[in-house]
């Protein structure tokens, strides 16, 4: 019996379904609990470089030291980065929407979040509405889960 090598792709489908339980450090846990339960936005200071890190982390990645000293941040900030996302990615929201980084007043670093309230019917027109350096309000969702997405941004008009 003769055998000829077949060239049509022979495809084996696989699906990964994995579960992880990530334990937050105490500083991150305090930030997320305070955001969820009290609606307050916290930063933390590095005693060496004196940057106020937002979101707060237990150690300063620049200075090899523990951060200490909670700082209440204002629910106002500056638009540092944005994009108008127009691509559907599995498990992520339906586009278009605006993703941004905002430095809260009183902090030295920026937090990522959705920027709501912009008409995204046209990606290009939405981008035209947004200017880096613009003042933004930091808003809190009514139903908070203890996730960074409990906060979102809106342009000050």
């Amino acid at each position, binding site marked *: 019996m003769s055998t000829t090598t077949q060239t049509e792709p022979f495809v084996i489908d696989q699906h990964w379904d994995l579960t992880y339980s990530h334990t937050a450090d105490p500083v991150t846990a305090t930030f*997320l609990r305070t955001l969820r339960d009290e609606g307050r936005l916290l930063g933390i200071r590095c005693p060496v470089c004196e940057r106020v890190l937002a979101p707060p982390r237990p150690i300063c990645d620049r200075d090899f030291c523990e951060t200490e000293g909670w700082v209440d941040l204002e629910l106002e900030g500056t638009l540092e*980065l944005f994009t108008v996302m127009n691509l559907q990615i599995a498990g992520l929201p339906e586009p278009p929407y605006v993703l941004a980084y905002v430095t809260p007043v009183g902090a030295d670093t920026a937090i990522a979040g959705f920027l709501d309230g912009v008409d995204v019917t046209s990606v290009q027109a939405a981008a035209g509405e947004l200017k880096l350096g613009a003042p933004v309000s930091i808003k809190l969702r009514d139903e908070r889960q203890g996730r960074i997405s409990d906060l979102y941004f809106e342009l000050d008009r």
Partner: protein
Amino acid sequence: MSAPRPTRPVAAVGVGQTPFGPTREAPTYVELLQRAAAQALESAALSIDDIDAIVLALAPESLMGVPHAERWCVEYLGAAMKPVLRIQTGGATGLSAVEAGYTHVASGLYDRVLVVGADRVRESGDAQKIFNKIWDPFYERGLPLTTITMIAMSAVRYMHNFGMTEEQMARVSQKAHHNGVLNPNAHIRREVTIEEVLESRYLAWPLKLLDACPQSAGGCAVVLSSADAVDRKSQDPAWISGHSMAGESYYIGDRLELSERGYDYGDAEALAAAAEHAYAMAGITDPAAQIDAVETYASFSPVEIHNAEALGLAERGTAGPMFEEGRFDLDGEIPINPSGGVICTNPISVTAMVRFVEAVLQVQGKAGPHQVEGAKTVVATGAGGSHQFFNVSVVTSEEPN
């Protein structure tokens, strides 16, 4: 910190690339590895028995779907009973693997090292879902951070700082596609006009589909040799005259204040840092005058613009118009990505190694239709992580002193 100092010269004596293309029709992962390795060994006129150690370039393995895949590869790589290392720095992996091979040889530990890798990026249709998982689970995952949005936001920052336009980005992509047509190994081989790029749909503003890299399958390999082990009758050495790598903070939100160098997230600061060290090793004091061509890792068109500045080929904020003037075209002053670059071919684990292999072919005068005439000093770069890990190799036809 002090600049790196090699203890002895290192040459690339063999290179291999499979043709790059869509994943579904490509050979399996291990076949791609061995085909690239066999080609590199053949071009070095060596056999696997001549190789002292193997370095495997394998980026996030969830793309091709076999965790801990170095297990699968040992005999395919000729690594049985030999030292074998796997290297992973995301998109920078391919050049980090060359760097591991380089340090193996420069240190005097080994005379001949095979550096090899492969990828099948579209094995999963969920590449961007996987790339969302590279963000930390506490503060950034769950938000739509991906390799696309991270570059889109860097481009927005650079536009804000320096006035880059979407037309300038489109011009970079038009050039890349033009060069890719000349490269028989490129995945995407078709001309696009500036208008077509501008009219293609937005992925994440200001990035459009035709500003972006494809998802490619293929393999790549390099044989590195000490100067003593080079056989000048059978081999055509290309020398690593300088090499360095630099990383920067994971946190994009921490990279918005101007650094001491005067850079922010709109730039590729760690690329500038790596270039400073690599250029110092190679004796490059005037990059624009001394470098003949560049193969730089730019997965989206605006990255190529700020990379040109980080590499010292343009003053800060001025590269966009220089691309429009054609100064980085194949027939321009300093051709950037004569191969078509990452915009035409992106097999992630080896994308940065392809930059190095193309630099080797250029200084050997063997690049083919996209050869830069008289190229003697060519720079290859890699980029990985959250636009965070950068490496720079200076490849020369002359042996370093």
